[in-house]
């Protein structure tokens, strides 16, 4: 082996680690770091393979970023054409596969002297500490801006509401589902009154926690007549708070 091959070793190791982390079900914090590195590495290696030593730093970096973004596009199309589903394993295989193949190609080219060995980039001049501190402070302040925006979005007064619905999804023929979801911001007491052709057939008192859904399946077919569900928000029993109604609909399309 001629010269320094540190970049080849690091990229190969990261590709292997990213695959291992995915296989082992590593925490998201770990997969985020390894995943971002894995996305970037094929671009770096392809730029090393395609561009000569005369290409300047910024140009090489931008080419590497562009190539890194191109690899999943071409890889995804190739997988799709081959009939392979685009799930986690296939994306890992594409990115790790390209990384390792590019590692091998780069290693071979360096062995034959076609490519220059890896060199750590040298800073042409060192930034004075006060400038480093100011750049750091800028990043912290900008991050605070994003936090302020996220907090603002979290505390923004939003609508409080209750959803009442009818659905035939997931129930067999001759039945229909009635559901209530509470998004009022606190636990709420309701009364659900189900009427068939105008006559009350079922009455239930419900206590539903904020964010929770309650549902029931009731018999319903073409001969059942009209089905109405009135939801009252207790203690008000004079006016339905929410209402759904088949209104002569045969419910075949619900």
């Amino acid at each position, binding site marked *: 082996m001629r010269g320094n091959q540190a970049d080849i070793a690091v990229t190969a190791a990261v590709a292997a680690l990213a695959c291992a982390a995915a296989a082992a079900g590593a925490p998201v914090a770990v997969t985020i770091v390894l995943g971002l590195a894995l996305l970037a590495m094929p671009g770096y290696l392809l730029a090393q393979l395609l561009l000569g030593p005369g290409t300047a730093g910024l140009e090489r970096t931008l080419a590497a970023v562009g190539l890194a973004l191109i690899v*999943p596009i071409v*890889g995804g199309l190739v997988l799709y054409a081959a009939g392979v589903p685009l799930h986690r394993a296939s994306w890992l295989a594409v990115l790790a596969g390209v990384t390792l193949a590019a590692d091998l190609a780069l290693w071979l080219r360096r062995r034959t002297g076609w490519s220059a060995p890896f060199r750590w980039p040298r800073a042409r001049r060192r930034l004075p500490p006060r400038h480093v501190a100011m750049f750091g402070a800028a990043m912290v302040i*900008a991050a605070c801006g994003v936090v302020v925006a996220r907090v603002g979005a979290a505390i923004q007064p939003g609508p409080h509401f209750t959803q009442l619905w009818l659905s035939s999804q997931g129930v067999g023929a001759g039945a229909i589902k009635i559901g209530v979801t509470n998004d009022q911001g606190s636990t709420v007491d309701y009364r659900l009154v189900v009427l068939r052709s105008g006559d009350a057939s079922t009455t239930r008192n419900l206590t539903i926690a904020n964010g929770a859904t309650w549902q029931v399946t009731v018999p319903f077919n073409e001969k059942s007549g009209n089905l109405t569900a009135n939801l009252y928000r207790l203690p008000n029993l004079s006016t339905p708070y929410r*209402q759904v109604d088949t209104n002569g609909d045969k419910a075949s399309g619900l």
Partner: protein
Amino acid sequence: MSASGRNGRADNMTAARSRLPVSVVALIAAVGVLIVAAAYTAGRLGYASSPWANRTYWVGQVLVIAPVGARLLSRRRLDASETVTLLVILTVAEYLVKVCYSPTGFTFGDELMHWRSTMNILQTGELFRPNDLLPISPFYPGLEEVTAALVSITGLSVFMAGLIVVGIAHLTYVLLLYLIFQQIASSHRVSGVAVLIYASNPLFQSFDSMFVYQTLALTFLGLAVLAAKHLAAWKTARDRGGWLAIALLATFATVVTHNVTSYVLVAALEVITLGSLLARSRLSAAWASLLALVASAAFTAWIVFVAPSTVSYIQPVLTSAVQAFKGLFASGHSSGMSATVGPLGDEALSAATVLAISVLLPVGWRHAWRHYRQQPWVMAMAIGSVTWYILVAVRLFVPDGTELAGRTATFVYVPTGFIAALAVIRLTDNSLRWPVIRANARRRAPLVVAVAVMGAVMFIFDGLANGWPPYWERLPGPYQVAGDEQSVDSLEIDSAQWAAANLGPHNTFATDNGDFAVLGSYGDQNPIGNITYLYTSPTLTAPDIQQAADQQIRFVLVDSRLSQALPASGTYFPGNDPGNYTRPLPLADLTKFDHIPDVARIYDSGDIVIYHVGEIDYAG
């Protein structure tokens, strides 16, 4: 003449150092981002229409833009790395401002469309799955592929992965522009100012950094053009081979990612060919025309074999534009002016910017002709910048031309920014030779720079004021009837998610503007246009019922808040809504579905009710 001589003293390392270090510029810009975020929070807490909240927003923007502009336009020493850092500061700060607008999820309609396409890939593992909201999007899956890959390998949400992908793509594109300009003009000063002017395009801070396919395609376009530049300049066969591979890959990625950007790539390469022929550079012309040929073949093959629906997607837009121009040239005026008119201040800002750039371009052309006549790419930029005047004509004379002009601004501002930058540098340098300035250069020279900085701030303010989001929701805030981003809240999202879970995908829906994108994305439904008739009368007539049957409408979503306020965007409904409302819709027009036999009321969340009209007796 050397580049430094032509382009002023700032490229010359003998100029004095600035008293405003780049690190301080970064700090000030960060404070600007924080102040804008505070203004957004004030908007969310109910002060969206408060004058002081709006002023706070603009103060934040001044802090982001003015110091960067001052350093780029200043005649103090500024090296290439500082120029790049300033452009990174401007781009990242404006991107963070965009992130702060929607910090917890996508709310822009176009972003929701691509969110849907990405979710389809993640849920099915397949490309090209139908997306009712933007049917063309699955056939150009570049952005969605990269995002789906990142989501899959990291475990991030689509929102977070999307922000990372488009953030990197946007910054890369801006820096590629800088590099291209820098290599054309051999001056980082001209290049920095050119990118500063480019950043004033109305979509720079919004559409060009959104989670939409164009954002990523622009990066590939920039890379392909940079590669074309190198192909004509590089000496060794090995380097040429590398750049040729990059050019081909970037061209293919552009074609696969966004149709319009791929046409623009071909047009750009053709203009470069023309410029090269003018400058008598055969090598440059040969490479540019060869790549244009390859790009044309690639997008033609893609359309024929993968995305034939592109033709029907693009045809109405082209037909409408051609008809408008025909009308314009036949009668001297078009059939109507732009429908959207903003506040007087925004319009005045827009007029001043249009005037200023229109005046700067001839100055830039003259400078380019005198000093860069032999440089093919400068000639290409000069030719390309003529499109500025076409853009202005479209904006002024074509019906709804503001929308069309806005969309093309992303591309038109590239050559325009470069030529205008030549003019700005020329004018600021020349003005220092004026006797009135020379008499007291120490005091008066900074005034020249100050005027230039004020001009740059005005350009960018015009882009922000007349770009996106529109003026009525510049600050995020509470729900607005038939608005855009401000019509996206938990009520709409929950009803859409309920539809996805309980109705199955791709049902034809009638709905208003506010629910349209949410229902199509979170709900995976097929909301359609031209449904105003369903909501604007107290009864449903037999012809109405027949039209609904013809449109195969299965569900109608009714938002009773349409009866409480006029539409913020001017229209309540997608498609053929004529607008011009003088009062909100009567509630009876919206609740009439309760009384129609065979129309089931299947969902009720208070303000939003969904009706099933699939069993309606269409025969009457």
